[in-house]
């Protein structure tokens, strides 16, 4: 296989990965950052990172790799904007969220991004606290603390809205 054929194959492979993973990645990131548009942009950045590192090492879990990079980008973007005095990204009452589960959406908005990320990765995607700790480069106890605090806040909201 010549270099051009290899390039085309890799590109096609990457396009397939993007098509498969982009939707769920946007959905996860929207819960983390509180904004579907920003989530879309972060997903694009994540897929670009994947393109730069493609092909991923043998045995890599593509889904987990994208989740880790996406969450890190989401958290870094918030820090970067704060550091450079850029306009904060608005986390608004988005229509799709307000028509689906406004109580949960507003409760999530009260949590910081790291806590939201930990909740999404553990509760929704089933990663263990150890795995999330490794993903986010923090001690396991820190993740446990985030989850404990986050769930405590969400519990009252869920209990109240399900009554």
């Amino acid at each position: 296989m010549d270099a051009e054929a290899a390039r085309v194959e890799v590109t096609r492979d990457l396009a397939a990965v993007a098509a498969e993973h982009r939707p769920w990645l946007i959905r996860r990131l929207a819960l983390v950052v509180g904004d579907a548009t920003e989530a879309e942009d972060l997903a694009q950045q994540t897929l670009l990172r994947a393109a730069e590192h493609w092909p991923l090492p043998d045995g890599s879990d593509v889904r987990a790799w994208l989740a880790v990079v996406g969450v890190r980008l989401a958290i870094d973007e918030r820090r970067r904007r704060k550091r450079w005095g850029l306009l904060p990204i608005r986390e608004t009452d988005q229509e799709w969220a307000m028509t689906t589960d406004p109580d949960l959406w507003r409760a999530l908005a009260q949590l910081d991004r790291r806590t939201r990320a930990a909740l999404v990765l553990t509760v929704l995607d089933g990663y263990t606290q150890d795995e999330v700790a490794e993903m986010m480069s923090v001690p396991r106890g820190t993740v446990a603390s985030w989850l404990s605090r986050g769930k405590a806040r969400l519990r009252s909201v869920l209990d109240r809205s399900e009554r």
Partner: protein
Amino acid sequence: MDDFDRRLRDRLATLARAVPVAIQPAPSTPTIRPVLRPRWSGVSLLAATTSVILVVGIAIAVTGHVWQTPSASGPPGVATSPVSTAAEGPSRSPAATAILSASPSATPTRPPADVALPYPAGCAAYRLSPRRCAYIVDWALGQAGIDAGHATVRLLGDPACDGEPAGCVAVRTTTFVVRVRVIATSGSASDHPVFCGLGSETSMLCSDTPLIRVSTPISSYHDVPCGPGPGGEPGSRCATPVPTIAPPAAADADPLEVAATTIPIDHVGPYSVDMGDALLPNGILSQTTATLTDDRRSDVLIPQGIHLEVLGPDGKPLENAYAQGWRPGIERVDVRLDFTVEAFDAGATLEITDIVVR
């Protein structure tokens, strides 16, 4: 997993499913690229129109926006991608290289037409200043009827070049500027290409320094040469002769002559600046002039131009010498400058010189 975790998982999953995910076009290569936040909050749209030739060649309604002061004139929310595209080492994969080669930083002059660049990062690829790019995007959002907070914006090339390799040359009688794709959070998308041609130089869609025209009543008067009428009778199509001025009326006349006046611009909307009055001999308007010192401006936007209005005793504008007709003696007229500012920078002024009404 306890009961609370299950309930939380179910509700998070429901919420996640509700997230709108825009449908990606099906490009020949994946359009993965660094994306910046398309945020430009604080922009307000004002109803106004200007003539711009678009792809369908029709006049379109255009909206303007209030600019920030010069210190904050760029679109807010501009950010750089944490992903470097310019200084990567040789370890980059072939796919990444292929994709990045179409990024604005790699090919700043002409990206492939069907590659959707993010806003505002993609503005430079189309040689658009931040301000003009923001104006175009505002216009496109107005065309789509979508607020900035509910849409993602992408910039593309000439629609005639879709699917063509970079360097596609579309033969047109107008100049292509950029195509704005507005993607609503619902996933629906619409394209709004901007083409410029004759008559569009007063719009910021087509120029960083749009022309401000100054019109006067006389400048709208046109004579026609004599010629045979429909029935062939000679002279039936000659212009109506301008009435002659009686010497006593000429002696009593008092023209308005203003060497220069400076008008500070302090609000968006209509202006009507009183310039004084003039006494016309026999009510005959024979000369009107007004000159804008700098008529290609980036600090104030007046797409409809400045109109020197000459108002008769009845308060109605004198259209031209022919329509005005002849009056005995002298006739007092009021003179004013009318215009509508769509946007301006703080401190902007208009210097009008050589105002003459006689």
